[in-house]
Every structure is written in structure tokens, then in C-alpha cells.
């Protein structure tokens, strides 16, 4: 039923009174149906595998585009169509697309968002689609990140590294001790002294870049390890039912108060142009593997990778990153899995790792990586993963809410709100969400279909 029929319908008005009401309604329905079929969820032509990835740094995007182009050139049966989605509204986009029936075949998502997608029934298990040999070659952290309720739902081609980038020259000039490994990390009071020493020699006193310009997920990833190091956590990981006493307990409050102290003392650069570290305005930059290419280019041999400061007996850092899953909507999961297997080949894993500095996801690739050998610049990241300093973000469908709540609390603390108050509000938000969702029962999670 298209435009012509609508017009005929309208032209018939006046001949029969009853048509006056039926026609507009029919016309409306026709319009909606016509549009929902052709204009909404685009049905992919056979042979096309649609893929969504987040719009990250240029070098990551370019590498991925290159990989897709190579795959398309090589494959005789499949063609991959890649779309980049802005990182800031990524989860919102996925949820909206799911509602519209518009999800792609292969979906990239930030690691801890996996659990909510699985809970919503969006993803296919990968156990049957990826050979066991391939899975055995993956890093344990990658498998752990991608597993939920006993099935593997996602694989990443790299894992993340979180640390403190330092300007060796500035650090030596200030006479501070440079930690040699994760066991050697600065304590929180030592870190305060380091900041003070650096600030004394800095024209504007801002010596620390916390990447305040990054999207919200960064704050949970980058700063919840400090809470965990102090003895708190984002949520009680025994039952995943509440964050009370854990996120707003004395340990967490203490940690946030320390962080607030950095802002109060004026140590933190707002980083409006994302260039505080490369322009050497600051001597220390909270950051991760993805900063390596640019920082290495700017600072050369002056670049040094340090562990985060420890707020308790043991240093804690973050892990987990973007990974790939196959959606239930995908009508040709074998084709999608073929693409994933391609991405996990050692050459491809190495290509991504070189582009973004991440820890290669397969042991085969790590062995060949120039960045992750025993004397290579990024070995700290691999060491953190190996020795258990890296703690994953909570594995629960409540994670998006936890992340939003923590990011909000961090912003509040940054702006001078009392840490206890900010964290209390975060806990309230998290607990309420878990209650509203009845504790996230296994409604749609099924395996092996």
C-alpha cells in the first residue's frame, strides 16, 4: 500500500461518510508500515556481514578499516560492512538499534557491557563457533572477560593496560624515585610528595593529567582501581546485589578524598586540548595502552611507563577492553565467526596491537610482539595482567548503571562535593537499579542455541 493508494483513498472522501474516518487511519497505518519495512531495519543483502565498531583513535580506525578491506578482498563468499559509532553514545545506540531490530551481525562493545547484552538476550554464544584451539590460545583475561553464565560470548583482540605515563626528564629533575614495576609502586602519600615536588618546578602548578576530557566510561575504568586498592570496591562481588558499604565505605571515601586533594591543590590539568602531556605541560599522565603511539612519538626516550600509585597494601590496575560478539539477529553466524577468526590471526592481532599499543590477546602474538617482550617498553602492562595486579570491572548486567553512577560521583568529587555524599548517591543509584531489575535474573540468557 503506497502513496498512490493513499491518494485514491483520500480522493474518495465525500462519497461515503464512513470513509472519512477510516481512510485517514488506513493511510496512517500504510505510511507507517511502508516505512518500517523499507526505511527502518535494513535487511542486509545475502553475503554481507554488518559490523559495528566504536569510533576510537584515528590509527585504530584506520587499522580496522584496512583489515576489513583485506578481508573483503580475500573472501570469496563474504563482504564485511563496517560502521563506526561514536563512543560517547555507544550503549544508547546499541539499545535503540536493538529496539528497532537494527543490530548488526557483529558488534563491538566495551568489555563489561557484555553482561547486560547477554542478559538482554542479544548475543549468540561463541563456544560452537570458535575452535577450541583458538580459544586455548587466548589470554585468560580475555576468556574471563568474555564468559558469562558458563558460555563464551565475546572475544577481544587485545586487552588493555592502565598505568601512569611519565616524563623521565621532569621526574629526574624533581628528584623523585621512579618505580621499576608493579610491586614497586608509589604509596599514596609518596605520590602526594611526588606531585608536590613536581609542582614546585612547574610554572602553573598543574603536573598531572587525568584525562578529564574523556567520555564517562574512562572514569570508572581508570579510577575504580584506586578504590579497590584502598580496600573498597564498586559493588559487593559475592552476590552482586548491593554496593552499600563497599562503594561508600570508609576505604572508598578515603580514596576519593585523596583524589579530591589533588584537585584542591591545583595539581590537575584540565586537558582541554588533549595535549597536556605531549606538550610537556604535565610530567605525569594517567593513561593506557592507546596513548603509547602518540606519547612515544612526542617524548621518545623520555617516555616512561609507571604503575598507578597504590592506596593500600597492593597496587591495583584495570583490565578489559573492547571486544567482539555475534548478535542473535545474525542470520549467518558462521560467516560472522569467520570474520572473527580472521581478526584473531596472529598477524591481525599484532597489527591492532601495534596500532593502539594494547596487549595482544593471543599468546602467539605476544611472543612476536616488539612492544611486549621482556625488555620492551610496555612490558608493565603484560606483567600487570600476568601477576594479577589487574582486576576486571564488575561482571554484572548492572554494570552500565554502576559505571554511570561512579562517573557521576567522580565528577561531583572533582567539583568539590564531599566524597561520602557523592558516593552515597552512587550507591543509591546502583542499588535501586538492581532492585528494579529484580536482581537481574536469568530470563533471556540461554546457551548453545
Amino acid at each position, binding site marked *: 500500500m503506497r502513496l498512490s493508494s493513499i491518494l485514491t483513498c483520500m480522493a474518495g472522501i465525500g462519497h461515503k461518510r464512513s470513509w472519512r474516518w477510516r481512510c485517514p487511519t488506513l493511510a496512517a497505518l500504510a*505510511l*507507517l508500515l511502508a*516505512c*518500517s*519495512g523499507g*526505511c*527502518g*531495519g535494513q535487511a542486509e543483502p545475502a553475503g554481507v556481514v554488518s559490523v*559495528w565498531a566504536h*569510533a*576510537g*583513535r*584515528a590509527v585504530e580506525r584506520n587499522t580496522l578499516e584496512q583489515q576489513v578491506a583485506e578481508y573483503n578482498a580475500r573472501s570469496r563468499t563474504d563482504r564485511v560492512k563496517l*560502521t*563506526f*559509532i*561514536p*563512543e*560517547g*553514545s555507544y550503549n544508547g*545506540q546499541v539499545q*535503540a*538499534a536493538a*529496539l*528497532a*531490530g*537494527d543490530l548488526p551481525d557483529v558488534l563491538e562493545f566495551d568489555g563489561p557491557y557484555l553482561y547486560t547484552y547477554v542478559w538482554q538476550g542479544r548475543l549468540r554464544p561463541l563456544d560452537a563457533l570458535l575452535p577450541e584451539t583458538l580459544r586455548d590460545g587466548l589470554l585468560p583475561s580475555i576468556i574471563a572477560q568474555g564468559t558469562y553464565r558458563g558460555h563464551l560470548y565475546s572475544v577481544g583482540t587485545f586487552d588493555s593496560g592502565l598505568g601512569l605515563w611519565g616524563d623521565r626528564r621532569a621526574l629526574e629533575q624533581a628528584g623523585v624515585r621512579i618505580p621499576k614495576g608493579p610491586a614497586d609502586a608509589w604509596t599514596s602519600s609518596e605520590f602526594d610528595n611526588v606531585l608536590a615536588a613536581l609542582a614546585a618546578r612547574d610554572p602553573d602548578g598543574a603536573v598531572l593529567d587525568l584525562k578529564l*576530557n574523556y*567520555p564517562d566510561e574512562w572514569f570508572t575504568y581508570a579510577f575504580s582501581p584506586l578504590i579497590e586498592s584502598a580496600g573498597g570496591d564498586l559493588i559487593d562481588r559475592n552476590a552482586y546485589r548491593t554496593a552499600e558499604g563497599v562503594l561508600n565505605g570508609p576505604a572508598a571515601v578515603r580514596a576519593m578524598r585523596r583524589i579530591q586533594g589533588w584537585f584542591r591543590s591545583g595539581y590537575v590539568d584540565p586537558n*582541554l*586540548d*588533549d*595535549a597536556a602531556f605531549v*606538550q610537556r605541560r604535565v610530567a605525569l599522565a594517567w593513561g593506557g595502552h592507546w596513548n603509547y603511539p*602518540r606519547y612515544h612519538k612526542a617524548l621518545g626516550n623520555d617516555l616512561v611507563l609507571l604503575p598507578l600509585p597504590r592506596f593500600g597494601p597492593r597496587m591495583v590496575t584495570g583490565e578489559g577492553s573492547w571486544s567482539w560478539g555475534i548478535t542473535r539477529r545474525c542470520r549467518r553466524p558462521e560467516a560472522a565467526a569467520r570474520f572473527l577468526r580472521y581478526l584473531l590471526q596472529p598477524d591481525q592481532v599484532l597489527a591492532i596491537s601495534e596500532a593502539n599499543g594494547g596487549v595482544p590477546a593471543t599468546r602467539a602474538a605476544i611472543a612476536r610482539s616488539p612492544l611486549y617482550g621482556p625488555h620492551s617498553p610496555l612490558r608493565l602492562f603484560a606483567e600487570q595482567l600476568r601477576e594479577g595486579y589487574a582486576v576486571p570491572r564488575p561482571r554484572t548486567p548492572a554494570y552500565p548503571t554502576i559505571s554511570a553512577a561512579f562517573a557521576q560521583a567522580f565528577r561531583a568529587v572533582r567539583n568539590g562535593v564531599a566524597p561520602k555524599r557523592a558516593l552515597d548517591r552512587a550507591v543509591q543509584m546502583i542499588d535501586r537499579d538492581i532492585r528494579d531489575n529484580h536482581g537481574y535474573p536469568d530470563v533471556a540468557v540461554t546457551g548453545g542455541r
Partner: protein
Amino acid sequence: MNAATRQRRNGKPPVPGGRWHTRAFSYLFVFASAALFVAPILFMLVGSLKPDARVLAEAGGWHAFWPGSGASGQNYTDVFHRVPFARYLVNSLWINGLIVALGLPVNAFAGYALARLRWRGRELALAAVLAILVIPFEAIAVPLFYELTALGMRDSYTVQVIPFIANPLSIYLFYSFFLGLPRELEEAARVDGAGVLRTFLTIVVPNAKAAFASVTIVTFLFYWGMYLWPLLVTGGPSVRPLPLGIATFYTLPPLQWGDILAFGMMMVAPVLVIFVIFQRWFVRGVAATGLKG
């Protein structure tokens, strides 16, 4: 109080040769105000020509308004390499064009029916239009997003166009205008036996050019800057319009201000140029909405 000042205050133009220092003061004021209004635009223009690092560094001094030695069009080419700007522009033009083009007949017909035709329910319909006029789009953005997404309409031109075709403000503008048209023309046509539709198309519409121009301009200006709706309903860059384009460009690493300002210049320059050329129509159109409303 002399003649010139008196004349100045009464809405009539004073004869030149009025008190010079009151005029000088007026000039000064106008100049200063114009400078304040234009400063950000000039800053944008100049910044788009500078290398990225200097944009922020020089923002605090007079150099913010002077490109200096390193000026080049590099930022402009960078924009095209980093994002599909041309696509965004085409999308904006297409979406906006459709909204305006489809909206004109739909709203003009309704406005005429309300203004000139006698039918049962006319008073009710008019009241309904005025009532709906009050509803800001943002109040229904969320439920509309849900309604259309649940119907599968997403990430397309259609979903960015059809919600905005029927527009209560346009209907009201047409209604006001048609009310003011002299009835003799239409009555003459009716006596000659022309039907309502024929009268409308052949007599009323050609005499309503001003209304069509006003509505076109106001509708265009209004929807050109749409950001909330595309944010909710589009995903990748394929149907993304310019206002969302610059917002996503701003969040795309690395953050290079020179490129962002270049994007902004390219985004606004065509409309600015059109405005300057057709400003009399713009002003007339805008003023008409205010005087009629």
C-alpha cells in the same frame, strides 16, 4: 532638546546634521555591540586558519583575531580526511529541503482550510492547532523516539523528515496570512464556478508568495540546527546531519581545535552567505512571524 533628537526618538529618520555627539555615541554603542556579537565568529574564522596548537594558545590575546604567519587551509583538508563532511552537508540539505518542501503544501492547505473554509469542527481544529503550538518538541522527543524506534524506523532520512512536515507554527502563519487576504479575488473565482481546490491553487497561492517565503525561511532556520532528534535516531555517519556531525567530531580523538573550527566555518558559511545575499527576505520573513504572531 533639538529637532534632530526629537526626530530620532520618534521612529523617523533624523536629518543628517543632528547633534554630532549623540550620533557619535550611538555609533560607538552600535560598534561596540556589533564587535561583541561578531568576535566569536571572527575568532572561529581566524582559528580555522591556524595550526591546531596555536588556536588555544593564542586565544587570550589579540592574536586570537589574527591568523599570523602559519595561516593555511590545512585544517579544512584535514576535516575532509577525518570525517565525511560532504556527506553530512548533503544530508542536512536533503533533510531540511524535504521538511520545507513537503511542509509547505501540507501546512498551507491546512491554514487555508482554517482561514477561509466553513466546516464543522473548524473552531475546534483551530483551538487544537493553537494548543499543539505550545508543545515544545523536546516534550515529546523521548516518547516519539520510542514510538518510531519500536516501529523499526531508525537511522534513515524518513525518520528525520516526516515527524516535522506538519508544523503548527507554519499552519498558524498561513492561517494568519490567508485571513488577511482580500476576499474579492476568491469570490470572483467562485462566481466563475471554480471549485475550492482550483481557487486555492490558481488564485490564493500566487498571491501568497510572501507567506510562503516567510514560512520557508523560518522553517529552514528552525530545523537546520536540529541536534537532539538526530542524536536519538541516527547511528553511524550515513544519514547524520551537520549539527550532530560537529558534536561527534568534537568527541572524536584527537581533539584538534583548528579542525573543529574549520568544520564549523564550512558548516555555517553557506547559510551565512545565503543570508547576506537574501537578507531582505530573511528579515521580512522573520519580522512577519513576529508581527503576525
